């Protein structure tokens, strides 16, 4: 398509796109810049300084919340990615009856509004008399991480050449050996990118965690929320910037891994 043809320049298209990207990134940039503020105010610039980062690093409550977040996200990622990988392998191949329904169930956490998942999970734990703790957070996180881990793995499997497995069988590889020698190496970029997405989603979740977190089981987003409730502060700017940069780094990495060896 000849995009240099002036006929293709629709009025307002370029300004809208500019507005879109500025609107999308301005708050993020402003937040990160303000996190390096040396003054006492959250919004008035008082010179460059890393002061608030050292305040954050020395705050025992923040460090504990960060540890909780890391523990939950790591475990939720390991569990949900394993479950999702097995499910993706099970869904591969000729369609069977009920498969559409099963894919629907796997995608359910994406469809149900977060607040609904949050309150229904809370009521469920209350119904089975399970005390709210880090463990209940973990269960909830595994559930909503499954589709995020599943979709990239499934996409990778679908793009795989089925003749490779036949070739392996022709060369007398057992199904088990064929899996580890052929399927798994080809699938691993999908698994890695799925695991990374699950990790980010778990690290970032606030709404569901907020409902199923017991006393003392504070994660970083829950901590941030309760601090914001008390008013904006340069300390929140610093914690928020750390979270943002970690997420963006992970997404960029996951994107890179997914693009490689296509």
């Amino acid at each position, binding site marked *: 398509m000849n995009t240099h043809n002036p006929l293709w320049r629709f009025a307002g*298209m370029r300004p809208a796109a500019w507005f879109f990207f500025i609107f999308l990134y301005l708050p993020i940039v402003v937040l990160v810049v303000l996190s390096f503020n040396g003054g006492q105010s959250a919004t008035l610039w008082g010179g460059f300084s890393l002061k608030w980062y050292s305040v954050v690093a020395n705050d025992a409550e923040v460090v504990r919340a960060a540890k909780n977040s890391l523990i939950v996200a790591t475990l939720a990622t390991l569990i949900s990615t394993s479950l999702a990988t097995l499910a993706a392998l099970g869904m591969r191949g000729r369609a069977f009856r009920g498969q559409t329904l099963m894919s629907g169930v796997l995608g359910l956490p994406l469809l149900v509004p*977060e607040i609904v998942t949050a309150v229904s999970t809370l009521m469920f734990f209350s119904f089975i008399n399970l005390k709210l703790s880090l463990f209940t957070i973990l269960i909830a996180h595994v559930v909503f991480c499954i589709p995020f881990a599943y979709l990239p793995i499934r996409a990778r499997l679908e793009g795989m050449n089925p003749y490779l497995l036949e070739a392996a069988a022709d060369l007398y590889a057992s199904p088990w050996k064929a899996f580890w020698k052929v399927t798994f190496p080809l699938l691993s970029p999908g698994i890695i990118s799925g695991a990374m997405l699950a990790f980010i989603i778990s690290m970032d979740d606030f709404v569901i965690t907020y409902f199923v977190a017991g006393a003392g089981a504070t994660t970083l987003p829950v901590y941030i929320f309760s601090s914001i409730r008390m008013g904006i502060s340069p300390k929140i700017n610093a914690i928020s910037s750390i979270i943002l940069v970690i997420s963006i780094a992970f997404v960029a990495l996951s994107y890179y891994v997914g693009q490689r060896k296509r």
Partner: protein
Amino acid sequence: MTTPRLIAERRQLGRRLLLSAPAMLTLLVFMLLPLGIMFVVSILQSGDYGGVKWGEYSFEAYRNFFYERDLDDTLVFNTDYLEIFQRSFWLSILTTAGCLLIGFPTALYLALQTERKRNLLLFLVTVPFWTNLLVRAYAWMLLLRNGGLVDEGLQGLGITDTGLGLLYTNNAVIIGLLYTYLPFMVLPIYTSLEKMDWRLVEAAFDLGANRFHALKRIIVPLAMPGIVAGSILVFIPSLGNYIIPELLGGGKTLMIGNLIQLQFGSSHNWPLGAALSFALLSFVLLAMLVYSVRFKPGNAGGHP
């Protein structure tokens, strides 16, 4: 008719089901079952001090949407909740319209770029989705507060001379919702534009159509599945959004999500919270059902 082939096939199917079983069971027990319990709670009596009275059924929670009980036990029409529903729908409709207004031209712009530039821009569209919404809503608090950067910027440009007092208003909530869901509008529209046969537009130009007509007669109709999908992806989640009204509305501009949260917090009315959640969920499922019936995959033109 148990031929060896059939047995082998059955065994393979069994193996595949076994592989899917752990994930399926996890979702059945920790997602579907809780949704079922939520429905049961919505038709239970509320407990005196929070929680519910198991085994005592009542439709009180659903009646609560419209009526409240007076002291002498008569039902009185109550518009408090209706107002919140109305506000939720209205703010979500405005958000969807705003997303469409900015999102469609942006998607068109993306679709007309060279492949390399397009991939980079698409990546930039998706990045915010993976970053913490709480943190990004907080960033908007910094921008919108009295004497914040939006105020300062507008005053610096001489557009306004006093603070706008944007934070904790409906406008702040709409800005926040727009910001949250814009990518959800751009991506589906872009996807349908990308699949489009652009030679149709060229043909329209060759036949003397101007840009407006090409847009109206060719591009918009062919992008319709994306426009509808995008509108659903924006409208539905913004209806139930909790974080944005909580932080940018300052607890004054309640939406359905906040109302649900309140029932599990200070109001201690679990059945009402469950009933509201169930109503929200039914609405979402209904919208998805209508969408999947009307825009089946393969029905790309969007004509039923």
